[in-house]
């Protein structure tokens, strides 16, 4: 396997210059997720404003894949309408679960298409998904605080 299918320039760039890192106020919900096999962890906050993801802020420690993934998550989901952000989430999870056989849609996933290579390394898929799972968790909780309707949707997806 070629190392650069995993460590795409975009991923290394996000790793070295993470977007939106640091925990910010205000927020609707905060979650803490860990990857028990390697000790990576992330604390992530979601702020909702009406039907919009006003902010995704995070802090944590982990490998380049998990850190870059959180950075790209911030870029893609902060500022988005909640259903759109969940659609991106769904596409990303599908990409990561595809063992390299899912063709990513750049229109939906943006820089996250760079993770297509990561899906071929089963040991690293969890690293890539850490922040995304935390985001879904936090978004559903934040939505539960504000609009019960969204909670139902969130649970259904």
């Amino acid at each position, binding site marked *: *396997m*070629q*190392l650069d299918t*995993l*460590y795409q320039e975009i991923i*290394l760039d996000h790793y070295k210059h993470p977007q939106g890192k640091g925990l910010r106020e205000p927020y609707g919900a905060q979650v803490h997720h860990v990857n028990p*096999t*390697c*000790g*990576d*962890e992330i604390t992530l906050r979601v702020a909702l404003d009406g039907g919009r993801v006003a902010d995704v802020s995070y802090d944590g*420690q*982990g*490998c*380049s*894949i*998990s*850190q870059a993934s959180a950075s790209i998550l911030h870029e893609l989901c902060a500022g988005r309408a909640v259903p759109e952000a969940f659609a991106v989430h769904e596409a990303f999870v599908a990409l990561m679960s595809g063992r390299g056989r899912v063709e990513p849609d750049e229109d939906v996933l943006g820089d996250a298409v760079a993770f297509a290579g990561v899906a071929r*390394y089963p040991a*690293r898929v969890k*690293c890539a998904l850490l922040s995304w799972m935390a985001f879904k968790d936090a978004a559903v909780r934040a939505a539960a605080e504000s609009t019960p309707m969204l909670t139902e949707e969130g649970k259904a997806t």
Partner: protein
Amino acid sequence: MTAIQIPQGMPQYEEMPRLDPYTLRADFPILSREINGHPMVYLDSANTAQKPRVVIDAMREHLERHNANVARSVHTLGTEATDAYEGARAKVAAFIGAADPDEVIFTKNATEAINTVAYAFANAGPDTDPRFRLGPGDEVVVSEMEHHSNIVPWQLLCERTGATLRWFGVTDAGRLKLDDLDDLVNPRTKIVAYTAVSNVLGTVNPTSAITARAREVGALVLLDASQAVPHRPTDLADLNADFLAFTGHKMCGPTGIGVLWGRGELLAAMPPFLGGGSMIESVTMERTTFAAPPARFEAGTPPITEAVGLAAAVDYLTGVGMEAVSWHEKELTVYALDALATVPGLRLYGPAMAVGRGGTLAFSLDGIHPHDVGQVLDSLGVQVRVGHHCARPLMLRFGVPAMTRASFHLYSTNEEVDALVRGLGQVRKVFG
């Protein structure tokens, strides 16, 4: 490495028993593999050791010729299988210097071996030997450098019984902190359970002071010898413990079999852990009486083929000689410590000298996450372990989420250490 003149009359370097790893490597089919277009460099033996052909052949031969269940059949195959299984027990007993093969209990792994003792305490009743009774006010002592398998069973036990869990700390140099030994191990202590050799730092822990103190206060001693038995001669008389736990797959045997050794007199008084077939003396619908050890602690069909494989591994290691294995790994560790010291940005955790340490080296590199280190090394064929090594409290102790770990066995070579060092250079290039 600077050569030091050893005074006349003392054992000289050349008198140490040796092994030739290059010859021995031919015994291990997997070692000729390539990984990602590179010759495989297997530096993860603390995780699991590779298997020599004799182990693989012994297991196949058993399955092809002698397979039957043990201890219950009158037929020929059953007798052969029982002989093979009990023969394995005797070989393991001899390998660690046990007085009697019946002191050797086969388990699934070292984790189950430790749980067998922890649950003996949990299952103790009012008539049980007081040494196995635990309650509020009693204390269990472990250490901060334990594998989770020697922490979690004791946490569960203490939660269940109301006893208190205490632990030895670890010094910056990666040694057990023993200055509070007399406070930690006190008349309230029922058992002290700690590792003989750290699976992360490689530290070889001193046993005599702890054992002496445990004896003084009447506490039992359990040694997790998972990283010791595969790499150095083991002499129970010398260790003077009450229980020893280790696993087959780290000593060139198969997975699925571990060992709990216990002093015969203690095992005879110890309540069972798992209930089921083979561990009973007599069963009625109302109650059960239990078989004598080791059967009492081997409920259900045991790992028979695995025991045959483990016996072959014991023969193999005995043939090579454990003194030679230990000396080889010591020399390799000296080489590796020197070599790793040349890598910029590398921080070693654990003893920096090859004294009182084994061939397991954990380190961090320039703030680069171990996952990334391991991935780049893998692309070059170098197989190391990354993560928390099932020793998260130790990671917290050193303030890191994870470490990279290289570990050796009898087939490891200086050239593999060189490949690791070259690989670390590549890691720094990718993430520098």
